């Protein structure tokens, strides 16, 4: 049971974060781009307040995979850099913490554009 439990929580919390976004899309006509931005900012705020850490400890990938987890990483990175280097950490911490995600998305995106072309809608 101890092996399966983290997976169940990851499924439930991850699924729930998606459901909240789905309701926002369907009911408020928020565009998906705005949802992504809101989720990252929400992650920064919740991460900054120290709340999101509990969710990560509890749900693992269920909390770190949604874009709120990306925001949490930014907040965490900035806090660590500020602790280490003072005010300059405000500028250096965020992008460093998010570097892998941003670089991977950009490079794989570019590779996709080199290797493939867009197809008509099915």
């Amino acid at each position, binding site marked *: 049971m101890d092996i399966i439990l983290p997976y169940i929580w990851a499924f439930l919390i991850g699924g729930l974060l998606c459901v909240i976004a789905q309701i926002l*899309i369907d009911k408020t006509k928020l565009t998906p781009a705005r949802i992504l931005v809101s989720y990252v900012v929400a992650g920064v705020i919740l991460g900054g307040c120290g709340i999101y850490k509990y969710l990560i400890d509890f749900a693992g990938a269920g909390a770190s995979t949604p874009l709120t987890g990306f925001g949490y990483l930014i907040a965490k990175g900035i806090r660590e850099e500020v602790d280490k280097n003072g005010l300059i950490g405000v500028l250096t911490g965020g992008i460093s913490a998010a570097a892998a995600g941003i670089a991977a998305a950009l490079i794989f995106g570019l590779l996709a554009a080199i290797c493939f072309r*867009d197809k*008509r*809608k099915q």
Partner: protein
Amino acid sequence: MGNIIQIPKPVYILSSATVVGQHEKKGPLGEYFDIVGDADDTFGCDTWEKSESEMQRLALSRALNYAVKKDSDLEAILAGDLLNQCAGSCYGLVNFDTPFLGLFGACSTAAEALLLSSLLCSSHMNRCAAVSSSHNASAERQFRYPLEYGGQRAPTAQWTVTGSGAFILSNKKEDFVNTSYNGSPVPVISDVCIGKSIDAGITDANNMGAAMAPAAADTLLRYFKESSSQPRDFDIIMTGDLGFEGSRILCDLTAAEGLDISAVHCDGGLIIYDRIGQDKHAGGSGCGCSAVVLAAQVLRGIRTGQVANILFIGTGALMNPTAIQQGASIPGIAHLVHISSDIL
């Protein structure tokens, strides 16, 4: 008064040709389209804008074939599409040796081109071509999201038709002699009504039907107020691409003014696809939608003698992505062309 412009001498639709993509081929009218593209809808081109241009070239070439005419027999081409600067038409028709007029009327362009062509052919010219097109992929790129973007479409959203229609208009009856249409009833344009741009306050770019319906209602109301005819005098009153939402609203709006068109109304956006089976939400739309349905369904009906008197109302949502982002609402427009049948 003066809403209806009578065409002083008969202007015939000498020929028409349609080019469509795979989704349209699989729709209820699939077998009646003249040219169907490749499986990818690229028409052999490396960008979607070029594909759309190629569709216009194919459509006009085929229409000229059917009319047994050359490009130099035409005195003008009037053409438009949904792309910025009407790129689909400008590039697609550049190799025809004919004076060219580019038009923009959003999805009403087919009707706008027919309307202006018929006026030109009844006075200063003998033969004109009216061409319009839309391509689902180039329209998605320009107005919505990248094609591979993973989003969900709203139930009120319409599907831009991949299609192009070309019509050759002529005021000479003898032009039919060498064509395969000789001996059958032929379509003739008798009067037209220019639409007014009407802003009903719709800001939702996913509900174009609601933005266009008031313009269609306005044009129809002005037409029947001035005309001696009644809706029941027509076999079909065909709107271009109001879709499911817009069609219902149009019937409501006209009924509220005492004009019941529901018995003879049909909509290009609703009949081009099996809306539910093909998962096309509120139906088809685009410059190509009204053009290919007019040619493949209505004009075919006239030539085979099934229908003889029709009103074609090209509907357009004059939507500009920049204006939408700035919070503006979407004006609609609807041009009317009265087409009847003439026995040669």
